[in-house]
């Protein structure tokens, strides 16, 4: 038996072979039974032939008995059996012919029997008719000739031959029945023994093979059920964690939706404020243009002030030059006065009065020099103030220029602000729209996540059921292994 055969194929093979044996036994039994039935039919037919032969002989005897009673008594009442025998003789001959149609020897004897029966009936009829005609003696003479007896003996001999042939047929059928029954018995016993041996061997081999294969399969099922159990446990744990995570995600998405709606409202407010800002920026741009014109006027006035201050500085420089002359004159006067004092001192008493004048001149020169220094200081202060003013004015002019440029920049910035705020308005509206869509999407996602959480919970339940099923499967596999391999349990 091939080891690669499947369980069904092996069982099929076993059952097919067993069925073949059963069919053989059945066929043998059927054949034996058929043979016995056929033999029984043949025996019955043979008995029926024997009975018909005996009945035919009895019918002839009844006819002869009736003929003799009539001959003796003249009573017509005795002719009834005679007449019945005549009437039934043809029928019986026909039945015998039918019953012995398969036997030519019997057909030949029936022909003889029919001929002799006709001769007998003719002899009986002749005697009866003589008796009827009142010739009882003639009739008796004919009887006493033993012609009738000879015919009857011949008839009895033919009937005996027919009976013997029927008996021989019966003996032959009995021997055939006995041989058929013996063959059937032997065949059935041998077939049963062979079938039992085959079934036993095949059952043993199939059982061993099935025990081996089923044991391995059950082992695989057991390990697989253990793995399935572990996987189901892990899946249940994962499903539980996933359900928890889905709940958190659902909560987070809900918060996200709320936040998105808040953002949408904020974006709407931003858009409104941006529109107001655009209006303010346009107004500010006009104000800046006016301020720029005022700055231009200030710039022109500053240029005039600078020119005047530069003129003032030049005048101060001219005053300084004049003061240099005055200072030089004062110094020279001082030197002259000192030299006058020196000369007066050298002149002695005559020079004293001149010394006084020289002293006064020197003092005057000192005062002039001091005054010149003061004036120079004042002029220097004025020049410093003028320079400071010019520098401050130039700085102011530069500041005004810078202010003008800044005003230009501010105006440009206002225009850019207006444009940017317009863009911001559009962006805020887009943000509002997008955020509303986002809130809707978040709601849809939340619903989807809720569904997923529900599915996860169902998965968790299913995993628990799977775990339970895996546990039951593991128990079943253990039971099955115990059933298949008790020693391994």
């Amino acid at each position: 038996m091939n080891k690669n055969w499947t369980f069904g194929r092996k069982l099929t093979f076993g059952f097919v072979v067993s069925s073949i044996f059963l069919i053989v036994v059945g066929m043998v039994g059927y054949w034996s039974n058929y043979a016995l039935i056929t033999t029984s039919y043949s025996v019955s037919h043979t008995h029926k032939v024997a009975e018909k032969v005996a009945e035919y002989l009895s019918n002839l005897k009844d006819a002869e008995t009736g003929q003799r009673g009539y001959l003796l008594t003249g009573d017509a009442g005795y002719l009834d059996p005679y007449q019945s025998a005549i009437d039934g003789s043809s029928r019986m001959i026909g039945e015998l012919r039918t019953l012995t149609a398969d036997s030519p020897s019997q057909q030949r004897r029936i022909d003889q029997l029919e001929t002799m029966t006709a001769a007998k009936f003719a002899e009986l009829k002749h005697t009866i008719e003589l008796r009827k005609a009142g010739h009882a003696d003639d009739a008796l003479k004919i009887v006493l000739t033993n012609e009738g007896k000879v015919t009857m003996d011949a008839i009895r001999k033919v009937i005996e031959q027919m009976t013997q042939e029927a008996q021989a047929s019966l003996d032959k059928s009995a021997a055939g029945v006995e041989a058929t029954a013996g063959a059937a018995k032997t065949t059935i016993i041998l077939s049963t023994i062979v079938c039992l041996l085959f079934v036993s061997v095949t059952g043993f081999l199939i059982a061993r093979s099935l025990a081996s294969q089923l044991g391995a399969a059950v082992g695989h099922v057991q390990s697989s059920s253990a793995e399935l159990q572990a996987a189901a446990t892990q899946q249940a744990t994962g499903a539980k964690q996933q359900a928890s995570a889905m709940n958190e995600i659902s909560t987070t998405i809900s918060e996200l939706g709320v936040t998105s709606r808040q953002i949408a409202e904020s974006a709407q407010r931003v858009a409104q404020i941006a529109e107001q800002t655009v209006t303010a920026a346009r107004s500010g741009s006009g104000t800046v243009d006016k301020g720029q014109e005022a700055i231009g006027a200030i710039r022109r006035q500053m240029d005039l002030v600078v020119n005047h201050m530069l003129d003032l500085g030049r005048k101060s420089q001219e005053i300084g030059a004049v003061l240099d002359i005055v200072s030089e004159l004062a110094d020279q006067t001082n030197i002259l006065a000192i030299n006058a004092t020196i000369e007066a001192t050298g002149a002695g008493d005559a020079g004293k009065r001149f010394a006084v004048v020289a002293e006064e001149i020197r003092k005057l020169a000192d005062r002039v020099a001091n005054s010149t220094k003061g004036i120079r200081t004042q002029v220097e202060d004025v020049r410093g103030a003028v320079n400071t003013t010019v520098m401050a004015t130039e700085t102011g002019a530069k500041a005004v220029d810078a202010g003008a440029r800044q005003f230009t920049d501010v105006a440009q910035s206002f225009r850019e602000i207006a444009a940017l705020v317009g863009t911001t308005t559009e962006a805020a509206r887009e943000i509002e729209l997008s955020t509303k869509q986002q809130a809707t999407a978040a709601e849809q996602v939340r619903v989807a996540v809720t569904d997923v959480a529900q599915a996860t919970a169902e998965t968790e339940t299913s995993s628990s059921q799977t775990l339970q099923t895996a546990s039951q499967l593991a128990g079943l596999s253990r039971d099955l292994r115990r059933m298949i391999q008790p020693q391994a349990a």
Partner: protein
Amino acid sequence: MTLDQANTALLALRREFDAGFARAPQSARAAQENLLAIRVGADGYALRIQDIGGLHLDKPIVALPTPIAELKGVAGFRGRVAPVYDLAGLLGHALQPAPRWLVLTRGAEPVALAFAHFEGHFSIDALDLVRPAEANPAAASAQAVVSDAVRHAGALWPIIDIAALVSAIQRLIPTRHAAQTAHKFDQGAFDHE
């Protein structure tokens, strides 16, 4: 200075100027001494006007080939030529490259002394004179040419003794050279006069 202050100063100046010509000559003023305040290097000195023949500014000086470092050259003063000496070098200070002021000494052989800064003229009483021991220690090397000192404007001004200084100059000059120089100077002076 405000305009009122200027007017006030102008009135005071005018009043003092008028008073100067209104006052009678005072005999007590004879006791006063006129001095010139100068600055040589970082030190201030005083010169007696009675020792000086003139004060000049930015006089052209003609340089002469001489072994005397202090002799800067000669200059003309009203027809007279006088040698010009660097007062800072004579007082022991570093020589000055281009002093602008010159004082001409009195005497038969006037000598011009050049210095950089002229502070001014001032008069003192005899009581303001200080003894030589209280003079400026920085002028110690020139002790021989500094006679007295005077207090003025919160500072001590050593008074240069012109006669001693001229003597010191003469000691710098070789005898014959000095005699020739003096003779030539006298001749020149007489020629001009």
